[in-house]
């Protein structure tokens, strides 16, 4: 029991879970009603769940999914992919362009999704080749698609921002008739299960971390670092496509300029809050997902407090500073020492505390 607690306090999940708990407690004190979930009837006439909790879980899905890929890239390549949001715009554009040239049916949607996956995996692999084979710093390598991505998305639909509407699409972006939980949440959960299975039944986790911590050791133990980095980028490509397509389904149109705008920074922050060092090495996918919910919960809390939307970012920044500070090793060490001192005083040791 005591040992389990010790193990837990050393795990990377402490800070994210603690931050999330803090947000929850803060909201409970502020307004008990904040977490109340009610059943309402929406525009399509479905009875669905509604409330802040649902909008947090729903709104964070896209960022949470992208953060899974970002975590793997961060861990293995010791850097971040800043082109994810721009590539998501490409994915969305490809998705819409396939949908618009066909009658929208379930197989067509699947085809459109697979097609946008293929395109994003190609773009991600391009990033991966620059990083893994040409050894370019990830942030510099992905700067290329960061700047060019939205222009490429612009060309795909000939510069227009077409809308797509179909009850099927709103089932994906909103609710499936008869199921009161928003579909993005369901997709996110499915994604998480899939990734857990991948981690459980392959050595992806071990290999990625070994490559991130010590590439030379990885090589000498028969792991191909280049391949592992490419795999990380490919998985990220699939994550990005999924997030892009969900977002298109939710808003019903593709706007290459605004789709998931600035999401890359949220994703990177999510990874950092989740307990993965941005300098690579040990990672925690679940931490990253929790990180996404923390950021979304923060945003929703601020809106609920009637903070003007233009000011939200400043408030977010303050809270993020606090979270990042408490996870800094300096603060951690200080906390441990403080705890030790207090604990020792209670026991009453005979160590002379001599001030010099």
């Amino acid at each position: 029991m005591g040992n389990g607690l010790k193990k837990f306090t050393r795990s990377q999940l402490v800070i994210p879970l603690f931050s999330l708990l803090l947000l929850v407690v803060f909201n409970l004190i502020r307004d008990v009603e904040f977490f109340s979930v009610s059943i309402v009837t929406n525009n399509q006439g479905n009875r669905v769940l509604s409330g802040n909790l649902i909008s947090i879980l729903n709104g964070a899905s896209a960022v949470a999914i992208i953060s899974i890929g970002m975590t793997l890239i961060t861990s293995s390549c010791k850097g971040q992919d800043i082109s994810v949001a721009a590539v998501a715009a490409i994915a969305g554009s490809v998705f819409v362009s396939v949908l618009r040239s066909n009658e929208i049916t379930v197989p067509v949607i699947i085809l459109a999704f697979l097609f946008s996956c293929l395109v994003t995996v190609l773009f991600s692999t391009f990033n991966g080749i620059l990083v893994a084979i040409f050894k370019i710093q990830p942030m510099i390598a992905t700067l290329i698609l960061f700047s060019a991505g939205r222009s490429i998305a612009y060309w795909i639909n000939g510069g227009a921002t077409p809308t797509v509407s179909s009850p099927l699409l709103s089932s994906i972006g909103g609710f499936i008739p008869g199921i009161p939980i928003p579909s993005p949440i369901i997709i996110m959960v499915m994604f998480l299960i899939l990734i857990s299975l991948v981690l459980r039944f392959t050595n992806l986790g071990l290999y990625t971390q070994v490559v991130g911590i010590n590439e030379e050791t990885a090589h000498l133990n028969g792991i191909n670092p280049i391949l592992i980095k490419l795999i990380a980028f490919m998985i990220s490509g699939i994550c990005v496509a999924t997030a892009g397509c969900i977002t298109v389904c939710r808003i019903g149109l593709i706007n290459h300029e605004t789709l998931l705008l600035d999401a890359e920074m949220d994703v990177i922050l999510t990874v950092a809050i989740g307990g993965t060092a941005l300098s690579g090495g040990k990672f925690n996918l679940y931490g990253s997902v929790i990180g996404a919910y923390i950021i979304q919960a923060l945003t929703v809390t601020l809106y609920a407090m009637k903070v003007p939307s233009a000011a939200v970012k400043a408030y977010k920044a303050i809270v993020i500073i606090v979270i990042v500070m408490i996870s800094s090793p300096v603060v951690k060490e200080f906390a441990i020492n403080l705890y030790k001192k207090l604990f020792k005083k209670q026991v009453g040791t005979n160590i002379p505390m001599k001030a010099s």
Partner: protein
Amino acid sequence: MQNNVVLSMRNINKSFPGVRALQNVDFTLRKGEIHALMGENGAGKSTLIKVLTGVYPKDSGQIFLNLNSGLKEINVRSPYEAQNLGISTVYQEITLCPNLTVAENMFIGRGNYSLVNWRSMKKKTAEILKKLNIPARATQQLGTCSIAVQQMVAIARAVDMDCKVLIFDEPTSSLDEQEVEKLFSLMRELKSRGVGIIFITHFLDQMYEISDMVTVLRNGELIGEYEVKDLPRVQLISMMMGKDLEDVSTLQKRKISDEKSDVLPIYEAVGLSSTNCPNAFDFKISKGEVNGFTGLLGSGRSESVRAVFAADKITDGRIKINGADVKIKKPKDAMMHGIGYLPEDRKRDGIVEDLSVRENIILALQVMKGFFRPFSRAEAEAFADEYIKLLGIKTASMDTPIKSLSGGNQQKVILARWLLTNPQYLILDEPTRGIDVGTKVEIQKLILKLAEDGVSITFISSEIEEMLRTCSRLIVMRDRKVVGQLKGEDMTQDNIMHMIAGEAVQNG
């Protein structure tokens, strides 16, 4: 006698999670004394020094320093404070700034920040360098000096800061013989000026050459303080290792004589070369044989075994395993053919520092088993547990990150990693470097034991004695070429030296 004491540490205790690093350790240093601190890795030498210099806070105990008015208790909270009190450290890695000049390095971080008098700084530096006989110019960039000179500059800096206690932490590891001699004469010079010197080293010869007193630690406990001239070597080693004297000497007498040249070699390479080892060489090893590559540092011995393991890109060569032609193009191929490779630089090429001991142990076998077939947690734990016990790896638990283990124990983890793959041919490049005498002996014993069990081993060590003791055949290298082989009676220190020097070997 009491007045002579510069530094006195009493009843020092220090614990880390799961380990008692120091238990009631006393240490006394007198004026003008060179006092060696000896012990195996993990004995507590570094911890004691870190407590003294304020890197770690002590759990309990007292430290007294002779400030001009006699012994006074001090409470050091940072290395900077220690330096101001007159306690300085010279490390094996240079901790100065290589891109600044010698003079700048001498005065950096001292006193007045706003105004720098460059001229007087240079003048003072030149004086000190001359006084201590250090072959460097004040205006020279530090990085252009040899490691030995850089170390001396660090020493000069400490001396100029009026240090009373100077700590040398493994200063000679990266120096050649002449440089060591120079360092020693500098140490004697300081000694005659009344500086108290603490000398930490793994090299027994050097310890005996220069030290007056020796304090021996083992497993965080004080074994004793002795006068060096009254202490026989064997006794010192046995105190450090806590093992019977006989144990050490029997190992030294043991010798492998059985030569199995008639059997099919387990591994055979013809015309092997790699990007890092451009001169093609032939090499073979038979079952249960222990052979070694020897030569000076940079002679290509490590590059050769790296080529065998395909650690560098292979450019040419034919390889046979048990008589059958095989292709070994990358480390994984070598692993799949039952070859294991313990690299020379443990920190750079061996350990995965942030991962646990368990993950470090199973790594190679896991890779051989395949990407889609991970070991279950229970299997991994069983493996780790088995090898932690088998090799006596000292670790708080199998989930401890490997970086918090001592060097010798890290090396054992890497050994465990390869033993777990059940190799038929194991390459050990400097497995005993930078680790304590006890673990060294254990590793040599292990090599002989494995060979008895039929594992072929290639062993590389900088210490020729170790190689003579364990190997039955030596391949001598010079300037990246194989210059000859020695076996049986011809394998003597003399012959090896002659061969390395490029002279004819005298038979008999």
